[in-house]
């Protein structure tokens, strides 16, 4: 994979603009860098050099080097702010693919892949909790695909989405059984395992013969909508929509007043990867009484929550530090709620608010909309 990007790797001019800015709405170009010891290899400039070294067989790949490679959340803030427009996100993903292909993974990511292979969820077996077994499949208009993290770690989002779809009179079902879209494996470089997960999940999805696959997770959306056909050769032929695309027409005119000061956290995959900055903001602005305020870093500049790229699973302290940094931006703009539409951001913020004792609530977009519809 890296070999295909040789020219792009050599485009890096080593200017170092990808470290910190603290200027024009960008604090840390690399969100994790301040929470690491801070070596060159812990932000984009050094990582590009190491990707090149991997491609050219210049260095021995050690566990420590793998840690530095995988401390990147793949948020693409460096790419957004690279003055010579190096496709850093693509390079860092290709680097992981090559590392994984050579048998170099972090143990925790290998465990996740095994969990998906055996239990169809990042999180392994379900334990004792019931109530999430497969419903009897039937032909539906909309199949809500919550994805692993939402269904296991953000049940309130599943419930809010189901409630909302019900209130809106949608013919829907929720894919309650464990089914991983494969994105967490894809982003940690395990593409063939991701494809196996994709095949398994699509087989479940097709039992409902849906017209639309609806997601509340930008990663599920990206992989189902784009990566399956473009990179995995899977043509499922079903329309895939993220809630922020699906809901505007349905909720218009039905939303009651919410006296709430909300700031929108752009999930990296929804924002920088897919360019969807306006859709969720448009939905929030439809809610009467809701005041939408922006953080210091927003839209293209939005700081990552620290969860992506497999970082939350592998580097708890780094992930939590980045999340607290981001939450402090929400506190600074005096929002009562930090809203998002990504289960990884949701979970990372929720646990960090608790740990740091912050006076802040995290809500998913659908929770807010559901509250606004009586």
């Amino acid at each position, binding site marked *: 994979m890296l070999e295909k990007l*040789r*020219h792009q790797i*050599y*485009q890096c*001019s*080593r*200017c*170092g*603009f990808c*470290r*910190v*800015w*603290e*200027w*024009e709405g960008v604090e840390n170009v690399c969100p994790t860098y301040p929470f690491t*010891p*801070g*070596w*060159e*290899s812990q932000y984009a*400039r*050094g990582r590009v*050099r*190491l990707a090149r*070294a991997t491609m050219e067989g*210049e*260095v*021995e790949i*050690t566990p*420590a*080097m793998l840690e*530095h490679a995988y401390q990147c959340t793949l948020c693409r803030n460096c790419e957004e*702010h690279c*003055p*010579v*427009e190096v496709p850093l996100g693509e390079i860092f993903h290709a680097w992981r693919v090559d590392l994984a292909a050579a048998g170099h993974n972090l143990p925790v990511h290998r465990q996740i892949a095994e969990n998906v292979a055996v239990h169809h969820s990042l999180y392994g077996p379900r334990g004792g909790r019931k109530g999430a077994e497969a419903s009897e499949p039937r032909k539906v208009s909309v199949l809500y695909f919550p994805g692993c993290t939402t269904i296991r770690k953000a049940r309130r989002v599943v419930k809010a989405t189901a409630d909302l779809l019900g209130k809106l009179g949608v013919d829907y079902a929720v894919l309650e059984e464990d089914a991983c879209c494969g994105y967490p494996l894809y982003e940690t470089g395990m593409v063939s395992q991701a494809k196996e997960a994709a095949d398994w999940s699509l087989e479940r999805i097709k039992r409902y013969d849906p017209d639309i696959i609806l997601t509340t997770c930008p990663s599920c959306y990206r992989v189902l909508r784009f990566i399956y056909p473009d990179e995995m050769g899977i043509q499922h032929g079903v329309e895939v929509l993220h809630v922020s695309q699906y809901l505007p027409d349905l909720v218009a005119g039905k939303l009651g007043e919410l006296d709430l000061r909300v700031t929108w956290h752009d999930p990296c995959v929804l924002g920088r990867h897919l360019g969807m900055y306006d859709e969720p903001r448009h939905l929030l602005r439809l809610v009467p009484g809701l005041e939408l305020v922006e953080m210091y870093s927003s839209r293209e500049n939005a700081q990552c929550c620290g969860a992506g790229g497999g970082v939350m699973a592998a580097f708890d302290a780094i992930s939590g530090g980045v999340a607290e940094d981001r939450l402090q931006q929400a506190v600074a703009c005096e929002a009562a709620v930090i809203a998002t539409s990504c289960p990884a951001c949701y979970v990372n913020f929720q646990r960090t608010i608790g740990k740091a004792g912050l006076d802040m609530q995290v809500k998913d977009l659908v929770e807010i909309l559901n509250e606004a519809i009586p």
Partner: protein
Amino acid sequence: MDKKYVFDRLAEIVGPEHVTDEPFILLTYTQDFGTQPPMWPSFVVRPGTTEEVAEILKLANELRIPVSPRGGGSAQEGGCQSDGGIVLETLRMDKILDIDEDTGTVTVEAGITFVKLMDVLEQRGWKIGIAPSGAMAGTPGAHIARPGVGWGNIKYVTQGDQVVGLKAVLPTGDIVSTGSAGNPNSDSFFRYCLGPDLAGLFIGSEGAYGVITEATLRMYPWPEKIYLERYIGHNLRDAIDIFREIALNNLVCYISVPVIKPDMILFDVNVEGDAVEVDHRLERIRAIVRKYPGIEFKGPEGPSRFWERRWFNTGEEFKDGIAGAVNYFLPFEKLEEATYAMRAIMDRHGIQKYAQQMFPEPMGSEHVSLMFHHPGDKEEYAKIQRALPEMMDKALSMGGCPYSKGRQWAPHLEKHLGNTGYWRTLKAIKKALDPNNIMNPGVVGL
């Protein structure tokens, strides 16, 4: 060298998390932003305080290990490389220590990035004089050590001219405060007092005499008005005459000449002050320009757009690759000859993509030649490596004086200056301060 022993001693000083001998990390410290060949250090260490720097240098002096200071790694002449020694990175030392609105000075640790410093000052209604074009990554410690120039060259001259005082660590570990801070009862508020100007010892020494750990710089109230406008000329001699007259009359904050081609010279003027002052200066500038036929007025839009995102935009010119840079000062009268001479060498070597630029000073100008290549292009890299020595030799022969020398200029400086009292004095100071030659050996030619 017993590497484990050295590692352990360094770890005792800074903590084990701030020293490394991991080959994959060392690899990322083998080069800067330029085209000097890679050099592998044995260790990289990231101290957090002046006292830790002092302990590191004492250890290095005891064990005779060379030490190369490094800021943001964004210079182009290989000044922060180390062959088998210690790279001492200052980025953990990133605090603003004091914004003194009484004396109009700001004191910072060496490793803060310029953009962070300038953003904080701007929010409080202040600015520094010289902002380097690599402000996104560059640090005051490194910029003073070169000493760098930047936006503000005509009004504020160089970063060295902005220094009020420095705190530096000598190769033996002694900590020196310069200027008024040399008096233990005083802060840093005045440079030329008490005795000889010791700040000047470190400005431009590129770490050969010690490590700058703190700097006190002048700061200025944020101007009421900043106005830019652009011109395009087609005659280099006329353009240089315009630069001279504007500069000698001190009418601008800076003139930027980012494009010099055989038939086109593009230049922007930046004027700052109160509204009346700016308007008056503009009238005088336009009157000077009007004396020369064929100069096109391009208005404020282009340069103003650039100015809004200036720190970011300076990086964009490197889309053509990493640049071999030959930058030096010359008096105005020699700029035209230098432009043609540098161009002739680059053309003769068949350099595919190069840029020529000027950034005038009050007494002359920085003359810039940048030769771009992507590191995978070995053929182009070889051409650049052949052109560089010729260009540096030619520049020095013409009376050119580089400010950022690093390892790139070192052999050429020695060749042209080696038989002078100036050179002998530099060497004598080096020997007196650094008897074991541990401080960044090889830079400047020391």
